[in-house]
């Protein structure tokens, strides 16, 4: 975004657009200038040609849920390192969660994050504003000031903490209507999850780890969809993880409630059976659930009950994970593996095609976040935000090659097939072959 000079023209040859039609695609001045036979004809003399035969072209991915840790925990991640990870993962826009230190609950902090994103220039960084002051859950933050700031905040969330007070949640839902905003709820009934360490069920009973019951998520979602329906507001549900949550969302959407929801790649792919290792890389909030839950969120994503895949990329320093389970921090990095893991869960299983993946990882999240110029179709005249994906070569996830400052991935050594090989942000190459192009 900071480069003022226009990028060179790029002719992408032979890409499979959304996994279907194979076509050339010409980028001029950051915009898709031509598609198909016209593309090659329209190239100028200084045009760079990219051989994309065998690769799938998707619109640049949009993440609704990223923890970039800056300001406050720059040892774990910075806006710059997180932007690099995003670009390598095929993302052209991310939403940076508000639980930084200081909390992103004022126009000043969200503008700082926004400026850091502009300076890094590897993907659009859209700060999420806190719903309540200091994530304290008692007083509304100045949502209007954040919305009107240079960062133009549209998504508000206390993520990491639940807005558990029903009155405060109702007011927040009502208030953001004036801002065309949305409240993204971290659904976790706090009393039911005090000291919780993992999903409550057969595995927690054996491991002697305090349980995080599905009902703690589902009861908040049920309350919130009723509230959103009552006041006519827009609600977004973060990281849906249980079969019951999918059922409630399906019911609410059927009644016309304006609710959207996201699911993480890890909740599409991993179960609480992994916790039997007591390996803290599998410690995450909400916790990994059962195979029945994984099957349900996959079906919910496939049928559109769940709108989007969001990473919940949560970098943590080595010392916060290299310890006993109870002492470990919750969360896992996810930007660089999101597409590969999500494709393993959804495409390899036949639940979604690549057009469907583009819808869930780009089109719908951009719409939920009210992002102009992201999540657009691959049409002439649209901004050239796109990612080229190698879908046919098996590879093993290598944490040491990651761009994130943190290495807390649960996928080390896992074999995947879908891999982003080139990412373009408004026509400029931001990442290729696993490296960010600063």
């Amino acid at each position, binding site marked *: 975004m900071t480069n003022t000079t226009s990028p060179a023209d790029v002719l992408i040859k032979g890409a499979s657009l959304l996994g279907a039609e194979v076509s050339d695609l010409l980028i001029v001045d950051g915009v898709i200038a031509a598609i198909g036979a016209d593309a090659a004809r329209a190239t100028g003399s200084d045009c760079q040609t990219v051989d994309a035969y065998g690769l799938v072209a998707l619109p640049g991915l949009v993440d609704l849920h990223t923890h970039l840790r800056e300001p406050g925990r720059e040892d774990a991640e910075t806006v710059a390192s997180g932007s690099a990870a995003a670009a390598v993962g095929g993302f052209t826009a991310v939403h940076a969660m508000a639980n930084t230190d200081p909390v992103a609950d004022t126009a000043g902090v969200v503008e700082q994050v926004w400026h850091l994103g502009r300076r890094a220039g590897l993907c659009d960084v859209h700060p999420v504003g806190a719903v309540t002051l200091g994530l304290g859950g008692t007083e509304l933050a100045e949502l209007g000031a954040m919305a009107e700031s240079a960062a133009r905040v549209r998504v508000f969330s206390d993520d990491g903490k639940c807005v558990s007070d029903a009155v405060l949640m109702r007011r927040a839902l009502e208030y953001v209507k004036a801002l065309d905003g949305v409240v993204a709820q971290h659904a976790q009934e706090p009393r039911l999850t005090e000291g919780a360490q993992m999903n*409550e*069920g*057969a595995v927690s009973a*054996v491991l002697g780890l*305090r349980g995080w019951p599905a009902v703690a998520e589902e009861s908040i979602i049920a309350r919130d969809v009723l509230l959103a329906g009552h006041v006519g507001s827009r609600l977004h549900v973060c990281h849906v993880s249980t079969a019951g949550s999918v059922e409630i969302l399906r019911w609410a959407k059927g009644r016309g409630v304006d609710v959207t929801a996201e699911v993480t790649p890890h909740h599409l792919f991993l179960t609480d059976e992994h916790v039997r290792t007591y390996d803290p890389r599998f410690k995450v909030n909400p916790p990994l659930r059962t195979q029945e839950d994984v099957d349900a969120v996959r079906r919910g994503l496939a049928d559109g009950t769940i709108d989007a895949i969001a990473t919940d990329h949560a970098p943590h320093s080595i010392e916060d994970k290299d310890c*006993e*389970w*109870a*002492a470990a921090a919750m969360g896992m990095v996810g930007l660089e593996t999101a597409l590969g893991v999500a494709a393993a869960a959804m495409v390899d299983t036949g639940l979604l095609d690549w057009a469907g993946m583009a819808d869930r990882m780009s089109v719908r999240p951009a719409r939920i976040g009210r992002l102009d110029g992201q999540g657009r179709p691959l049409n002439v005249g649209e901004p050239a935000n796109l990612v080229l994906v190698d879908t046919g070569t098996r590879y093993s996830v290598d944490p040491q090659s990651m761009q994130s400052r943190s290495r807390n991935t649960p996928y080390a050594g896992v074999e995947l097939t879908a891999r982003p090989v080139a990412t373009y942000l408004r026509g400029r190459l931001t990442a290729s072959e696993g490296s960010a192009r600063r």
Partner: protein
Amino acid sequence: MTRHLLSAADLSLDDATLILDTADELARVSDRPVKKLPTLRGRTVVNLFFEDSTRTRISFEAAAKRLSADVINFSAKGSSVSKGESLKDTALTLEAMGADAVVIRHPASGAPHTLAHSGWIGGSIVNAGDGTHEHPTQALLDAFTMRRHLSTISGRKVVIVGDVLHSRVARSNVLLLATLGAEVTLVAPPTLLPVGVGQWPCEHSYDLDASLVGADVVMMLRVQRERMNAAFFPSVREYSRRYGLDADRMSRLADHAIVMHPGPMNRGLEITAAVADSDRAVIIEQVTNGVSVRMAVLYLLLGGSDSALGGDQ
């Protein structure tokens, strides 16, 4: 590869039987005027206790010393751990000092598992109680005690009563007794049974009186009074009435039935003084047997060139 004792589930029937048979042999040492064997001379056993538990620590200490091992007691209190040192750095320190076995008690479930699989330390790890997970040597000494009184364990009816949800003793006993072929029934108010208990290899019930019929063993678990404040049960009196073992309930047991408790007891809560001090109660024997069983575990883990104990790789 190093062998560890992390969970009662690590033990096959042959493993468990070997430990109990070995403990029988080693128990005879305790009857001799000189209660010492040279078996582990020159080996170092570290008792790494992140939680206060004097009785378990001295039991392991006595076991190791009777086998002539060098014993180092590392208590978290007053050590670098209380100043924020991580489990990892503590483990690296012990490794640098050359610990052959680490007996660990830790408030976090899975900490012994983490220690055994981290690569931080090369010695054998013995779980001496981790959080609300397991306490396998307690289950072994309980089985040893049952076997001495009832001669066989297979087919015996064992009733375990109390705070199963928070009990590492209950978890290890259920797993080991299932391996040994006993029929276990857990009895507790529904609030103190974990979600998922239905998948354990045992029965469960909310009715103590019905469960005591035909019982060969009644094992009472310690119930912490503060559970009452978290609404697990309404009052100490109500708990005692519904789930406590008193003389009246004891009188309905078969003549051969024994009463057990892992200690420390809350007299007047889960067990009355009359029961605790009766002939039925084998609670003090459990303590004695603990030393023999822990001798057997250390002997089998450290004694031979190839440990006879199976279990965790």
